[in-house]
């Protein structure tokens, strides 16, 4: 609870700091606020998890771990953002406060215990993002992305809300615990409840961006400023997944014969569409967008094969994915600054110019592809293990094929860094600011540490 209040106040405080033109104080204040939030979250760890405020929010271990993850990832992204935002616009304070508000929404989604909170959380998260995506006001791509995201987001919200309304109509409650008893005890579950499940599923699938509803992802990820893309593909995606997981694992498990086929279809389409489209891309950023679609598909494995290990496997996978994405997008910022394009070719010869950066990006790519000794491998392994336990053999085979496709396009980046020479002799190596160095090293190290010693993460849940 303290975390929510802190973030709310922090956002407003940042707006005031911006008002008084104290630009240098912005980043320290924001980071300090995040640290305080983190403190509140960690201190809640030992407490018994009870639904607070008439069952509106619950800070159990699931919510806490993922909130901590979200806060940490946001912190990393904010560390990178200082000069990046200064470059693209003058209203830096608003960026910080919008990101903080969006984080607040993400935490609400992590910790919701009532559909009203889920809805408000998702809305806060997305409304802030609609604006952040369109933050480069003079850039047509950014405007287009923002508008598309807004329209799609409005549609998905509509689906979600209609679904929630139908579920309420059937059960007469918004509360997850009450819904749980309704589903568990009721032999006569009303048909509108099923319609509600489907619509909520649609709405949430929009938000996490899986296949039949993924059309906004590439354009939006492409048009948004790179750091916002990084934020969207990590924090927002993680939070939406937890919303998904909490609803399905706490409430809808008894009805799994109803929604499992739907979700299976969604996953298979997602994997193929995501991976095959990623294969076709020539732009690194679009490749990352499609790969995020396919990663969303992998993360859905945990929901299809729901069980005791679902939460921890999503945690591992999401952490691995978030760390690797941050590294990838940071590298893209640096490379783009140098070459001015985000095609694969701009990575050519990076190993010669800057061996260290190339090495870090390689670690990230290997992690995304799921090569052993990186965090991504552990994440994929746990996901596949889940599915194996439920004997979805066909799904497993398809997933393995897709993982193989994935290796190809991730390694393309590595190949162009190490084995291709630069087209024109640019000469000078690209300078890397210290904060970028810190974030990159931290993320790469964590990736390897989790890859070698995954128990530190799995043991949490």
């Amino acid at each position, binding site marked *: 609870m303290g975390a*929510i209040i802190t973030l*709310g106040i922090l*956002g*407003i405080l940042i*707006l005031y700091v911006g008002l008084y033109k104290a630009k240098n104080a912005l980043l320290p204040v924001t980071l300090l606020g995040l640290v305080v939030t983190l403190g509140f979250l960690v201190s809640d760890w030992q407490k018994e998890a009870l639904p*607070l*405020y*008439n069952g*509106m*929010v619950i800070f159990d271990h699931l919510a806490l771990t993922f909130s901590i993850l979200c806060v940490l990832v946001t912190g990393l992204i904010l560390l990178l953002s200082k000069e990046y935002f200064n470059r693209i616009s003058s*209203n830096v304070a*608003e960026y910080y*406060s*919008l990101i903080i*508000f*969006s984080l*607040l*929404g993400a935490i*609400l989604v992590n910790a919701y215990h*009532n559909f*009203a*909170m889920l809805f*408000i959380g998702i*809305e*806060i998260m997305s*409304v*802030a993002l*609609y*604006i952040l995506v*369109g*933050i480069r*006001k*003079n850039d047509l791509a950014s405007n287009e992305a923002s508008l598309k995201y807004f329209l799609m987001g409005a549609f998905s919200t509509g689906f979600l809300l209609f679904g929630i309304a*139908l579920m309420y109509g059937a059960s*007469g409650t918004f509360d997850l615990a009450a819904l749980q008893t309704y589903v568990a005890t009721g032999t006569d579950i*009303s*048909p*509108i409840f*099923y*319609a509600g499940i489907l619509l909520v599923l649609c709405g949430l699938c929009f938000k996490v961006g899986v296949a039949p509803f993924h059309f906004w992802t590439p354009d939006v990820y492409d048009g948004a400023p790179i750091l916002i893309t990084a934020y969207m593909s990590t924090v927002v995606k993680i939070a939406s997944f937890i919303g998904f997981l909490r609803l399905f694992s706490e409430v809808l498990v008894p009805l799994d014969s109803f929604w499992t086929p739907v979700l299976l279809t969604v996953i298979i389409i997602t994997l193929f569409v995501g991976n095959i489209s990623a294969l076709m891309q020539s732009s690194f950023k679009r490749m990352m967008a499609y790969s995020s679609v396919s990663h969303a598909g992998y993360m859905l494995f945990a929901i299809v094969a729901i069980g005791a290990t679902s939460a921890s496997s999503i945690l591992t996978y999401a952490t691995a994915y978030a760390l690797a994405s941050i590294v990838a997008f940071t590298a893209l910022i640096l490379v783009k600054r140098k070459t001015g394009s985000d095609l694969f070719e701009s990575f050519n010869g990076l190993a010669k110019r800057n061996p260290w950066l190339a090495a870090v990006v390689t670690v990230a790519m290997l992690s995304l592809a799921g090569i052993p000794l990186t965090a991504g491998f552990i994440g994929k392994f746990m996901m596949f293990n889940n599915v194996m336990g439920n004997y979805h053999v066909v799904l497993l085979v398809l997933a393995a094929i897709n993982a193989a496709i994935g290796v190809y396009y991730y390694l393309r980046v590595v190949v162009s860094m190490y084995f291709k020479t630069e087209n024109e002799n640019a000469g000078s190596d690209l300078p890397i600011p210290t904060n970028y160095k810190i974030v990159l090293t931290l993320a790469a190290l964590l990736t390897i540490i989790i890859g070698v010693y995954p128990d530190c993460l799995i043991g949490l849940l």
Partner: protein
Amino acid sequence: MTIFTKNPVHSVLYLVITFFTLTIHYILLNAQFLAVVNFIVYMGAIMVLFLFVLMLLNLNKESEPMKSNLVKIIGAIAGMCLIATLLGAFRVLEPSNEMVAAHADIGLVKNLGKVLFNEFLLPFELSSVLLLTAMVGTVLLAKKDVKKA
């Protein structure tokens, strides 16, 4: 009438009538709050917005996007499927829900306030954050025009 009128402005005006009858329904169902909100927000604000947008867009025959028949048919089939599914779900419902029937005055403003400030206090307060976010965003995005000029 809303759908079949050729003139978009007339169409909007017919929509206002539809909403007005809907409001009367709400009053008949003893739902004051919904009626008032429907009256003010939908008929007042949103319809005026619609009219403004229509006038700004200046729709006419030439600028109308042409849709192929195939798209129309596919759209119709998809829409019908959705309607059939939802109707199928609604059909099995017993029309009188004992929850609603037990609280005849559930739609009064007084009850709404009680619920809003007791049970749903937290979401209510947090929606202020949502509005603040939207406000910051609007100002941020709208400022562009001032700068450019």
